[in-house]
């Protein structure tokens, strides 16, 4: 292996976003120590470094190469437009979350620990950026752990609160178990093939004399670790409790960024490891080892049905959004079950839109909780008359999450159903459609509390500061505009479909 300084400098070119994030972590820690009294400088540093990272990620849309590749073997990282898209989603979510945190009353409570807060957020970002482009099982495991360890602590950031601590413990136990199981799966795959690189494993398992049962078992063990991150059933048990217990900015972050990283990893793992060839219509011919199509369809139907039906009984908005997030993981998995580039396109469009609408919904829930101190549905009674801006925005975000026109959520679902019908998976499409109808019920139930219950004299009037109004509009306008004019988002997605090597 060539380890000259030129080689190293050259390889560092491909991980510029990760380098910027690493430098920012150090910078934030030192700023926290030096400017001890002026905590408001920390979010500014974070936002600036996110913008710089974003610039380098945009550069990666033009790249299609391995990074950190020792001579004679495939690289540890795959830098490609597909990864760049998911990195953009993560960075966008982080940007919005930092703006959330400035306003969140829960985070303000522990204002002397803001240094830790932003350091841990950046730890999560670093983990996610590596997970998204990792092409090596060990790098996948290590960066997933970096992501998880930071998020366990963030879930319990407000140490004094009972439900924060409980969320943190539950997340830790479920997360620790599933990542341990995933590591066991990785060790078995290493034993069968002698390699941990996804691309090398792919070329090694083309030979037919493999011990199939063992390989299937190991793949399912690895899927456990990923399924936990994307909160798909039956690995979803942590989701409602952690979402309800954690501070709202962190809940919103887990529901977008963590999930995006998990999906990028799942797609890369399935496609790169098991692909045999791509036929002329763009469908992937996978190796005849494990029937991913049936497996993913089953998981997806289970997630959708369970998420949507459990959400019907929820009275806490955060818990309701947690079940809705499980259901959305189900819809997103359908895009993978199609096993074609068209399905991938649908997932990418869905994620671009899901980021806006879900962050928006959490933002409104946070602003209301800042004032009333709870997320209980009865506290939303009559708010439609006293706080029109918040209520109208919440209504639009919820309609978008259901998937009704003229909002962007409709476009997201539309592309997903087109992909399903083109692949002749009509039954699955019908089940997904019925699930959407069920989801309408619980989203509209919140609107009923907002508008059909008369305002009492003690119904709070929730003022919105100028910064928050801008933030709401930043999320609301795309949700509406992309519902009508969605060509840019589709064009953007078409660029982002290409994975390295295919």
């Amino acid at each position, binding site marked *: 292996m060539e380890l000259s300084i030129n080689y190293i400098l050259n390889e560092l070119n491909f991980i510029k976003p990760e380098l910027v994030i690493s430098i920012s972590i150090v910078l934030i820690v030192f700023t926290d120590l030096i400017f001890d009294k002026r905590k408001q400088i920390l979010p500014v540093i974070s936002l600036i470094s996110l913008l710089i990272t974003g610039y380098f990620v945009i550069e990666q849309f033009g790249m299609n190469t391995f990074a950190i590749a020792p001579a004679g073997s495939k690289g540890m990282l795959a830098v490609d437009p597909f990864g760049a898209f998911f990195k953009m989603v993560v960075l966008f979510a982080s940007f919005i979350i930092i703006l959330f945190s400035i306003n969140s009353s829960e985070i303000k409570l522990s204002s002397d620990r803001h240094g830790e807060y932003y350091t841990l957020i950046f730890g999560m970002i670093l983990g996610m950026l590596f997970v998204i482009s990792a092409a090596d099982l*060990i790098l996948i*495991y*290590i960066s997933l*752990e970096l992501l998880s*360890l930071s998020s*366990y*602590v963030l879930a*319990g950031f407000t*140490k*004094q*609160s*009972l*439900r924060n*601590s*409980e*969320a*943190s*413990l*539950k997340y*830790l*136990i479920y997360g*620790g*178990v599933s990542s*341990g*199981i995933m*590591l*066991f799966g*990785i*060790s*078995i795959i*290493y*034993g069968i093939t*002698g*390699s*941990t690189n996804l691309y090398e494993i792919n070329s090694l398992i083309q030979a037919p004399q493999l011990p199939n049962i063992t390989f299937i078992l190991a793949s399912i063990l690895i899927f456990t670790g990923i399924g936990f991150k994307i909160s798909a059933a039956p690995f979803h048990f942590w989701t*409602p*409790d952690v979402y*309800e*217990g954690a501070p709202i900015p962190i809940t919103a972050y887990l529901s977008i960024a963590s999930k995006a990283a998990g999906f990028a990893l799942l797609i890369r793992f399935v496609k790169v490891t098991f692909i045999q060839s791509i036929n002329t219509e763009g469908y992937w011919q996978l190796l005849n080892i494990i029937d991913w199509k049936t497996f993913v369809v089953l998981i997806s139907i289970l997630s959708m049905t369970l998420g949507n039906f459990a959400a019907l*009984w*929820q*009275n806490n908005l955060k*818990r309701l959004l947690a079940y809705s997030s499980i259901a959305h993981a189900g819809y997103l998995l359908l895009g993978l079950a199609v096993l074609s580039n068209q399905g991938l396109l649908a997932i990418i469009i869905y994620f671009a839109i899901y980021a806006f609408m879900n962050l928006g919904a959490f933002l409104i829930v946070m602003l209301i909780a800042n004032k009333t101190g709870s997320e209980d549905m009865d506290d939303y009674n009559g708010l439609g008359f006293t706080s029109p801006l918040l209520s109208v925005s919440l209504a639009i975000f919820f309609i978008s999450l259901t998937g009704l026109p003229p909002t962007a959520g409709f476009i997201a679902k539309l592309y997903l159903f087109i992909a399903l019908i083109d692949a002749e998976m009509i039954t699955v499409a019908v089940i997904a459609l019925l699930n959407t109808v069920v989801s309408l019920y619980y989203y509209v139930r919140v609107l009923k509390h907002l508008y059909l219950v008369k305002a009492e004299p003690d119904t709070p009037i929730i003022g919105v500061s100028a910064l928050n109004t801008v933030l709401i509009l930043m999320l609301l306008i795309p949700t509406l505009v992309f519902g009508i004019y969605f060509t840019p988002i589709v064009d953007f997605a078409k660029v982002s479909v290409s994975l390295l090597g295919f």
Partner: protein
Amino acid sequence: MIQVGLNHFLVLSAVLFSLGIFGIVTRKNAVMVLMGIELILNAANINFIAFAKYGNFGYQGQLIALFVIVLAAAEAAIALAIVLNIYKTFSTVNVDEIDTLKE
């Protein structure tokens, strides 16, 4: 005299893995649950090293085991901090009694 081979190591790691899962499912004390997780990680470590030695895959397996040991230590540190905080707020570390977040 029995020659110790790959199978012996695999059986050992499978037993450790099962014990880990068993501990996680049955134990009520949060610290014991965390020890179950450690057992799973060590089962995987044994696999990595055994495969590297008997499969002639070079030193990669040993290196991976080193990485995993470091990560397990980091995870244990964070986990114990969280459990300590749980003890402060709930005055118990029994995972069955920590259930305020239920409908």
